[in-house]
């Protein structure tokens, strides 16, 4: 394989003479899983890792703002639910490679392209969950709220949205995890991230384990953060059991 031999060559040049022990040297040459190599090279993953965080957090944030606003609009004007779900659903089905290619004439290559595409993928998930969450608010609570003199706006912010929070945050978690995975393809649009590292030496087990592992770790950490936030803001859910 051209790529693999090339990258091995790269290491041979980078590594100072006799730096690795014989066994470690052999491990790297055989593209195996080499703890010594990882211990010594982890710094090279730091920048891509933060790039990956950026490629996740920015699209999810923009996507959340967009989808949430669309959902509030569609909640009031019910006829919008179908069209919005249709359009965001269509965006969701576009293969990422094709998406980057389609965006290239408009946004060129780079982070912007990656972010636009990744943002589009979050819309359907978040939109659907906000709508589902709002629809699941008990009718009796809404009727009582109206009967007590809450305005439509007060009802939305004080009753409907708080009660929809678990569903909304569940959507946010799915969207975040998905985006961490999809962001690994951002390198196809020259967007950087851990995907670029993965691709650079995709047959070198050590590299794949570290870059891939960091992706998984990132997804898990973000998931736990959102889950923790959810527990904090929905105390009634624990009381219910």
């Amino acid at each position: 394989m051209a790529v693999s031999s090339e990258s091995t060559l790269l290491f041979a040049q980078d590594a100072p003479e006799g730096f690795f022990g014989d066994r470690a040297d052999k491990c790297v040459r055989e593209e195996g899983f080499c703890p010594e190599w990882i211990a010594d090279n982890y710094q090279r993953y730091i920048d891509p890792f933060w790039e990956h965080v950026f490629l996740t957090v920015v699209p999810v944030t923009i996507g959340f703002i967009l989808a949430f606003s669309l959902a509030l609009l569609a909640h009031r004007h019910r006829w919008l639910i179908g069209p919005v779900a249709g359009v965001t659903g269509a965006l969701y089905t576009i293969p990422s490679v094709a998406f980057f290619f389609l965006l290239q004439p408009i946004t060129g290559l780079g982070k912007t392209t990656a972010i636009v595409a990744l943002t589009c993928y979050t819309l359907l998930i978040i939109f659907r969950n906000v709508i589902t969450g709002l629809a699941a608010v008990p009718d009796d609570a809404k009727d009582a709220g109206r009967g007590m003199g809450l305005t439509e706006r007060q009802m939305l912010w004080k009753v409907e949205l708080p009660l929809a929070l678990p569903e909304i945050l569940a959507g946010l978690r799915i969207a975040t995890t998905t985006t961490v995975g999809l962001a690994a393809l951002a390198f196809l649009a020259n967007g950087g991230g851990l995907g670029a590292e993965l691709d650079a030496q995709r047959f070198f087990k050590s590299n794949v384990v570290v870059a891939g592992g960091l992706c998984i770790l990132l997804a898990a950490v973000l998931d736990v953060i959102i889950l923790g936030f959810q527990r904090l803001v929905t105390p009634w859910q624990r009381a219910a059991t």
Partner: protein
Amino acid sequence: MTEPTPAQTEGKSDRQAATLEFRDATKRYPGQDDAAVDHLSLEVPAGEICVLVGPSGCGKTTAMRMVNRMIDITDGDILLDGKSVKDRPPAELRREIGYAIQQIGLFPHLTIADNIATVPKLLGWDKERISTRIDELLELVSLDPADTRDRYPAQLSGGQRQRIGVARALAVDPPLMLMDEPFGAIDPINRERLQNEFLRLQQDIRKTIVFVTHDIDEAIKMGDRIAVLQKGGKLAQFASPADLLMYPASKFVEDFVGADRALKRLALQRVRDIDLWKAAIVRVGEPVAEARAKLADADLEMALLVDDSHRPLGWLSEAALSGERVEDKRRSEAEPIVEMDDILRDALSDLLASDTRYGPVVDNSGKVVGVLSLEVIGGFLHEPSSEARSGADLVES
């Protein structure tokens, strides 16, 4: 309760109950031939419970919801303290009207305290006033404030949630309350307890209340006045419970109140409300001649022996009156003893359970005031009271 704080007395009931008038109030839905509520006219005096009752689809809930504009009136008007509800912005109007529904509709994400605080917060009450009011309301509905305040609705039983629903509706001491089958989803034993509690509460707070139910027994128990609605939202009759049972205005009302309407009247009246038998009340040592004179004047052939405080001891036998003075020779004990405040139905049940078919009636201090017998109750059921007769004029066609 402890000494009322100034805030408590302030919260108690400084606001007057409102009068409510339906004036040809009509609701039509587009595309439907029959009106949901058809020219409904009735007046509810301040401080009374008006029950809207009828079979499903009779428009009773619709009629209630028109009051706070949850449903808009098509024709006619509804006046609250003489002012049309149509002139008020709906949200503002609703904050002044207590609202309690069968499903309760507590907000699951808010603590009990925050649920009760909903309308006070909308009206911009300060924190301290709200907090005091919450404790006061929880005590009013027989819940422990310290234990209940910070719980979530899901942590309470159905009966407790229902009480919170009522407390929340009472939060700002509204002059009018709307209650849509508020005890409908509760098991019979707890429902009865809640009804009694609520009636006791109403004695204190004296709100004007529109109470919707499909249960005629609940209507009779809760209502000062009952509006029976029939399909198409037409008022079949508007009358006091006693009148409704005595003088059903139509075949429909007669069927709706049920074949046992005579018996239902027993639940409405107390022993003090009916004419009792006069008994010969004698004491030991009294001259027999006097006792015999009393007997001649009594409705009962037996003399009732009482102690010095006029408490009943037993029924005298013939032998007791054979000498010069009355002796303590009883044929039977004075059982059952009926209290003036007993409901007739319960008193009847006591009489039927005993061997004798009559029992001495005592007042609060235990003194005999008369005798209740099956015949007396039979007479009551047969003869409409004069009050009920005059009420018949209220009957509408």
